[in-house]
């Protein structure tokens, strides 16, 4: 297993390096930030001073090397807009995002895995039909709409939960449910499909004719075999939630990374864009590295 881990870590580092080039270039493709940052009455000299101060007047490759050297020493630049270290802004936003993503994933697993198993074992029953309906709705309904409906229903019509903001436990309910609804639908369908396949496999048939108790066949053998693709999916889904719950964060005015990035892009606040994309990317890759390592633990054929 040692070489496997080293190889995966090496791949992750190379991906990160490529990513820095990509982020750097993409951020600059949005145009010159000077007019957006400087007040309209600023003189040309002010503008030139701004460009020089942030190194924007230098050739791109030079800017990139400076950028790379700086991030290696932990300096992600200062936000053009807030005049604060970009990383501090991102770190402040990543907390709420991680909490939201983590809780939603947990909820999705708690709902989706048992539903998927039960549906796979009761193929063709009314229960399976209901699960199919739930999963279909969850996948088909866009998160922003679900979010808005929940706000209408549970914070306006019946004022139970706050409609927006961050702080107390109650604030978590609506955004969590919104995200978990979608994620649990996918987890349900994936568990269902993979459990069905696992239950049809030869080794399950063999365990049956050997009189192994059903509980062991389902929960030990079939579930572990079915869990491999589910784990992969969860890793990807978690990554998506990390950087991409933009819409949900906006609907619920959640002070997370999604919101921060959208704002930073609109303002051409390069350092913030770069820092947040880099941080979410590192988190995403770490999660997927963990998934791969978990995969190697779950499946002895991987590391062989």
């Amino acid at each position, binding site marked *: 297993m040692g070489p496997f881990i080293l190889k995966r870590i090496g791949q992750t580092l190379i991906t990160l390096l490529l990513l820095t080039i990509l982020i750097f270039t993409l951020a600059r493709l949005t145009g010159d930030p000077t007019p957006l940052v400087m007040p309209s009455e600023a003189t040309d000299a002010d503008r030139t001073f701004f460009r020089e101060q942030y190194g924007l007047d230098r050739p791109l490759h030079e800017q990139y090397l400076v950028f790379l050297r700086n991030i290696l020493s932990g300096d992600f630049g200062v936000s053009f807009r807030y005049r604060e270290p970009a990383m501090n802004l991102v770190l402040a936003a990543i907390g709420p995002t991680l909490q939201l993503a983590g809780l939603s994933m947990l909820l999705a697993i708690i709902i989706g895995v048992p539903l998927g198993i039960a549906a796979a074992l009761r193929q063709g029953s009314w229960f399976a039909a209901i699960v199919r309906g739930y999963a279909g709705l969850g996948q088909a309904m866009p998160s922003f709409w679900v979010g808005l409906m929940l706000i209408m229903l549970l914070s306006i019509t019946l004022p139970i939960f706050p409609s927006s903001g961050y702080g107390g436990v109650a604030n978590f309910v609506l955004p969590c449910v919104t995200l978990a609804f979608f994620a649990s639908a996918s987890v349900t369908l994936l568990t269902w499909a993979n459990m069905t396949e696992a239950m049809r496999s030869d080794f399950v048939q063999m365990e049956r004719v*050997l009189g192994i108790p059903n509980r062991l066949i389902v929960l030990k053998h079939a579930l*572990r*075999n079915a869990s491999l693709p589910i784990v992969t999916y969860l890793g990807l889904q978690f990554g998506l939630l990390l950087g991409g719950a933009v819409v949900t964060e906006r609907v619920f005015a959640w002070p997370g990374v999604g919101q921060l990035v959208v704002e930073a892009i609109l303002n051409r606040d390069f350092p913030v864009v770069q820092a947040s994309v880099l941080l979410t990317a590192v988190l995403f890759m770490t999660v997927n590295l963990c998934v791969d390592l978990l995969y190697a633990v779950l*499946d*002895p054929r991987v590391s062989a």
Partner: protein
Amino acid sequence: MHRETSPPILTVKDLTVAFGPMERPARAVAGLNLTLQPGEILGIAGESGSGKSTLCNAIIRTLPRSARVGGEVRYDGRQLLALSEREMRGLRGSEISMVLQNPMTSLDPLFTIGNQVDEVLRERRRQGQSNDQVTAIGLLRRVHLTAPELRLRQYPHQLSGGMRQRVLTAMATAATPRLLIADEPTTALDASIQDEILLLFREIRDRAGTAIIIVTHDLSAIRRLSDRIIVMYAGRLVEEGPTATVFSAPRHPYTRALLDSLPQVEGDTVTLKAIPGQVPNLAELPHGCAFADRCPVAIARCRTEDPTEMQLGLRHRAFCWLADTAS
């Protein structure tokens, strides 16, 4: 092994397994009768789709829920088809056991051999079918697996097909079942390994008196191993008799065609003779004998009337209008 006097361990009476719509059912097994004596090895031959595997799964009751099963399966006097799933589970593995077709996929790839053998042993002990003296290593030794200590720590993908079939056989016979069903146990294996596995089955029978049903389309395996043979075609039994008799004097044209399809070696030339045509669609069987369309000697009657049983001698019977005339 002729133990005519003892009561049969297994009696299958008028067994029918149907799939598909009620009005146009596909009968994978149609009105099949057979008996098996304790310690007897019965070979079941036939092409793919002849209903061999369905028959096995009907006996041990692992057919999909969509299957409609009729008739009787008596094991040691008990009507298996009337048992609850729970009672049936109590018999599976301990009294009636089975080895599946594909050893490559019949072990869980994510657990070690030891884990899986132990799981079976624990279950047998819990049922009082085994004791602490029987160990996983002992079981693997009994099926002549080399380096059993090492195998227990290995995963299925680290073992060859032959080794895996030995492991599966060890698991299936952990508690000395009285009936072992082997569904194409050698088909997925190299020719050189096939013989060893067949010998292993014979050894199990000789040691424990286990009755064995071996299903295969490999007639040479049946010839070497079984005491008696049943030939199936399109879900029906077409010929039954002592292995030596059926091989030397087959009476059903299908049996003859099957035997002819074995490679014939004469000097340097090997000739293969295939049976022309295909196994008919079970949902659209023609009137009369199901084999009539492929039969080289079929007469008009074969296409209008189902052939009845023709007794041809001691325990030798065939379902063919021409069984007593053709040779």
